[in-house]
Each structure stands twice: as structure tokens, then as C-alpha cells.
């Protein structure tokens, strides 16, 4: 029995990666839930919006790196991020102007917009691969670890190491800042309140003198920022590969639906529920259990419930369970 080492192994392999991945999903799910609440459809193009924004950031990061600009221990990508966000804002506003607006003016049924967004998914998807290619791209630089396993072992003298990657730290800090800013914006500012009003009752918002086009514009700007930040953080933490963003759509939607579509608080909770389910179910628990169990009971197998290849099944199953038993999500799905 070695409780301390078990705890460190748990933190190292489950807790820290889970929190980082959960933050990335939460940021993605917030974007999905905002579009659902305000524009009233599920935006299937969200994953590829993340890819587009991240792609722009990667390209600008490379440019900065070639100029020799860097942020020291922090990745240069953070410096390129605002430009990536600007690109994504331009992209989404342009898409809205050319495509979504046409349907919005006619008050097309939301299900039509869902299919429209699917078409846009394929266009974005193709564009991303056309510009940057389908392969893995590395754009991380700076210091790799905040706490590395070797240093941790040396300083504590414990056999079990704990590592905390810079990207994980950045992900968590950025997510907290972004979420706090978003909630402040939605609840305290005039523009944020007008978004909530529009989400609640479009006609009455119009009768109050709220300009619907302006609400839609602000929504796309926020969604573009959230998507790019989520995409870049995911890319920094794992690696940038266009196809993974399309696949991320499933856990992101699962997170948004589990939390209750249209509810920002739910999106965050849902992000962590999905992330921790995925990590705990696909993690081989042998190491932790060996520390915890008395010797005769120590497991001989890996104690891995599901191979990591099947991690998407986890999102799917949770989604099914929630839709079967609590269709409005854990937090009551309500208008934003």
C-alpha cells in the first residue's frame, strides 16, 4: 500500500490530462452552445472552424518563428493567436454574410441551417487540407514542462514521477480567463444581455429595438474566438492535424448536449464529464492499483476498460444515456 504514489500516478495520468482535455472540450462546447442558443441550430462546422482558426495560427507562428520572434519559455503560438482569431472572425462573418444570412432572412427552419452547416463543414475541411496538408504539424516551441517527471522524482525522492506540461498549464489558465470573461460579458454588459434577450425571444428583442444582425455578428465574433482558442490549445497540447478537429466534433457536441444545449454553464460541466469519462475509461489502471492494493490482490492485467482506439465510443454512450434519461441535459437546457 502506497497511497501517496497512487495519488501521484493518478494525478499524472488521469487528473491533469483530464482537466486539460476537459478545458479544451468546454471551450469548444461553449461555441456550439452559443450558436445553438442564439442562431438556433447545431453548428456542425464548429470542429472545422477550430481547424481553420488553428491553421491560421500555425501559419503565423511559423512566420514569427522564421523572423526569430519568440516568447521565451512560452510558445510563440500565443503571440500568433490574436491573428488567428482575427482570421477566424473574418471567415465566420464572411460565411454568415454569404450563406447563413440568406436563410436567416427567410426564417428558414433550423434543421435546414443544420444541413447548411454540414455543407460548410466540408468546405472548411477541404480548405484546411488544401492549405496546410492533411499531416501532423508541429508548431510548439518554448519550454516543454512546468514540472518534469525527472525533476519531480529528484526533488521528492519518490519513485513515481509527476509531469505538468506547459501546454496543459496554458490550457487551464486560458480556459479559466476565457470562461470568466464570457460569463461577465453575457451577464453584465449591454451587448451580452441583448444576446440573451435575442436568444430568449427574437420578436420581443426586435420590439425592444435590439438589432438582430448586430446580435448575430457579436455571436459569430465570440464563436470564432472560442473556436480558435480551443483549436490552438488542442493543437499545442496534442498536435495539429486537420482530421482530428473533425473528429473532435463528437466529444464537443456530446459535452454541449450532456450539459444542456444552450446553457453555457452546462457546456463547461459537460466538457469535463466527457473528458474525465474518456480518460478514466481508456486509462490502464494497473499502476495506480498496484500502489493501492495489498500484494496478493494486485492485478495482473492492465485494468483498462476500453482501448484508446475506442475513446469516441465513450462520448457516444454518454450522449445516449443522457438523451434517454435526461434529454435536456444535466443542467436544464435553457436559452443562453
Amino acid at each position, binding site marked *: 500500500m502506497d497511497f501517496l504514489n497512487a495519488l501521484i500516478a493518478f494525478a499524472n495520468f488521469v487528473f491533469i490530462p483530464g482537466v486539460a482535455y476537459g478545458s479544451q472540450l468546454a471551450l469548444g462546447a461553449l461555441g456550439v452552445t452559443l450558436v445553438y442558443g442564439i442562431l438556433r441550430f447545431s453548428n456542425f462546422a464548429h470542429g472545422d472552424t477550430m481547424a481553420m482558426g488553428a491553421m491560421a495560427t500555425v501559419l503565423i507562428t511559423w512566420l514569427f518563428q522564421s523572423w526569430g520572434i519568440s516568447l521565451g519559455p512560452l510558445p510563440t503560438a500565443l503571440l500568433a493567436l490574436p491573428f488567428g482569431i482575427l482570421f477566424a472572425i473574418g471567415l465566420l462573418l464572411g460565411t454568415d454574410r454569404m450563406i447563413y444570412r440568406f436563410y436567416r432572412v427567410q426564417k428558414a427552419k433550423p434543421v435546414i441551417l443544420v444541413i447548411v452547416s454540414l455543407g460548410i463543414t466540408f468546405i472548411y475541411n477541404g480548405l484546411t487540407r488544401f492549405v496546410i496538408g492533411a499531416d501532423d504539424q508541429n508548431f510548439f516551441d518554448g519550454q516543454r514542462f512546468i514540472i518534469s517527471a525527472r525533476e519531480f522524482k529528484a526533488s521528492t525522492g519518490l519513485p513515481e514521477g509527476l509531469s505538468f506540461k506547459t501546454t496543459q498549464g496554458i490550457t487551464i489558465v486560458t480556459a479559466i480567463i476565457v470562461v470568466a470573461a464570457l460569463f461577465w460579458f453575457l451577464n453584465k454588459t*449591454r451587448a451580452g444581455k441583448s444576446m*440573451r*434577450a435575442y*436568444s430568449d425571444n427574437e*420578436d420581443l428583442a*426586435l420590439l425592444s*429595438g435590439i438589432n438582430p444582425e448586430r446580435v448575430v455578428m457579436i455571436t459569430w465574433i465570440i464563436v470564432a474566438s472560442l473556436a480558435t482558442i480551443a483549436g490552438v490549445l488542442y493543437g499545442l497540447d496534442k498536435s495539429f492535424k486537420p482530421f482530428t478537429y473533425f473528429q473532435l466534433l463528437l466529444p464537443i457536441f456530446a459535452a454541449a448536449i450532456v450539459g444542456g444545449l444552450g446553457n453555457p454553464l452546462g457546456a463547461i460541466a459537460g466538457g469535463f464529464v466527457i473528458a474525465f469519462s474518456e480518460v478514466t475509461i481508456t486509462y490502464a489502471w494497473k499502476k495506480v492499483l498496484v500502489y493501492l492494493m495489498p500484494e496478493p490482490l494486485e492485478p495482473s492485467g492492465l485494468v483498462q476498460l476500453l482501448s484508446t482506439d475506442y475513446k469516441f465510443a465513450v462520448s457516444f454512450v454518454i450522449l445516449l444515456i443522457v*438523451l434517454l434519461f435526461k434529454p435536456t441535459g444535466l443542467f436544464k437546457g435553457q436559452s443562453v
Partner: protein
Amino acid sequence: MSDAYGDRGNKDASITNPKGMGSRIPEASGESFASPGGPFLIGENMTAGYGAGPDILHDCTIAVDQGEIAVIVGPNGAGKSTGMKAVFGMLDMRQGHVRLDGEDITGLSPQDRVAKGMGFVPQTSNIFTSMTVEENLEMGAFIRTDDFSDTMAQVYDLFPILKEKRLQAAGELSGGQRQQVAVGRALMTQPKVLMLDEPTAGVSPIVMDELFDRIIEVARTGIPILMVEQNARQALEIADKGYVLVQGANAYSGTGKELLADPEVRKSFLGG
């Protein structure tokens, strides 16, 4: 054959969110021009319908003058609410004009009409249910850039219960309180004319009396009120001007007292 553009798929709440979705607003030219004379607000000879659909209003005229309460009554489906919406620019006008304070505003969008000083309380979904009472009032004052705290204080004076419940979500209030929020929201712009679509729909008789009292109070502050009412008798009693609509056209009009005394109106609409 099934309708290809019907409502299929829209009930799947995991991908679509039709709740709170707005109605189609007709395109507006955005032009208004001076057109002096006539009553303060008038929808004149309006022939209108939704989109390319059939005409619902036929040469219908509704007007209200300064310091007056004008009431529109009539049987179900007579086009009372539609008439109000037409005056507010939410219908496609085929013929006729809307004039406000000596200005022809037929070409303006509903938002622009709000800016011109029209306040409208729709019959249903007339509050932001997920927002607090105070936020509802703030949204009412959205177009104002000046300090509106004194207007809010006036609304709270008029409806003291709202002050008590100001931090509660408006959707949690009772029917009568919701109507007070709705009227309060419309008053926040300091409108030059207030349009109420069945403000007493679905509230108990006691609450109804109270609401009528409040509406008279609002009218006394000098705001002309144009109102659609189901409770024809009670509404005509407080009305300076009354319109009886039948099938989208004016059937009778006159002062409230005249209409109440008119045997035809009594027989057909007021139950003898």
C-alpha cells in the same frame, strides 16, 4: 405526398432550437417623410397580409389621438391583433399608410418605429422569461443612450410588485405580474404612443380590474393608448374611441359610449 419543406426534423431538440424563434419581418425601405395632419397615430385604409399569403386586413383604419384610449374589439379571428401588427410594421402592407405624429412611417421597420416612439406589447411571449424583471426593463430601454434609472423608478412606482421581484426571473411570475413586466418593458423607451395587444388575456377578473386601472393611470400621464381587448364591454367603458372589426374590416366605430349604446353592437358583440 409529404411536404418536403415541412416541419420534419425540427422537433429534434438535440440539433434545432425553434424556441423563441422570430417571425418573418417584411422588408422595409427605411424611408419616412412628413405628412402633417390627421390623428396622432393612424393606420389608414390598411390592406395587409403575411408574406405572399391572402389579405387579412381589408381597408381597415385604426387611429388614436393625443390623450386618448382607443380600443379595438371584435370576434375571434377578426384581425384585431393583425391590425395592431400591421400598424407596427410586422405585416406586408399592400395598401394604406401608417402615420405617426405628422410623419408617414409606412416604410419603416419595427425597430425604426420603436426609435420613433412607438411602444408595443404583444399578446403572447411579451417578456424575456429567462431574464430577471430588472433585465427585462433594461432591455426595454435598449435604444436609450441616456440614463434611464428615473424611468425605471417610475415603472416601479406604477407597478410596485415589480420592484419587490426585480431580481427574480420574469418567467417565474404569475400571469398578472408578467403582464405588468410586459407593459413596464414597453414604457421604458418613454414611448409617444403605447400599443397593447390583449393585456388582460388569461388573468383573473380581479387582476384584470387592477390592470385596467393601471392602464388608465398610464393614459393619464399623457401617453395615447391603442389597445386590443377581449373583454369588450369593460374595455369600451374606458375607451375614448372604439373600433369593432369583423373579418379584417371596420364594422363599427365611434366613442366607447356610442358603441356601448348601439343596439347592433350590443346584440352582436356584447351579448345583448
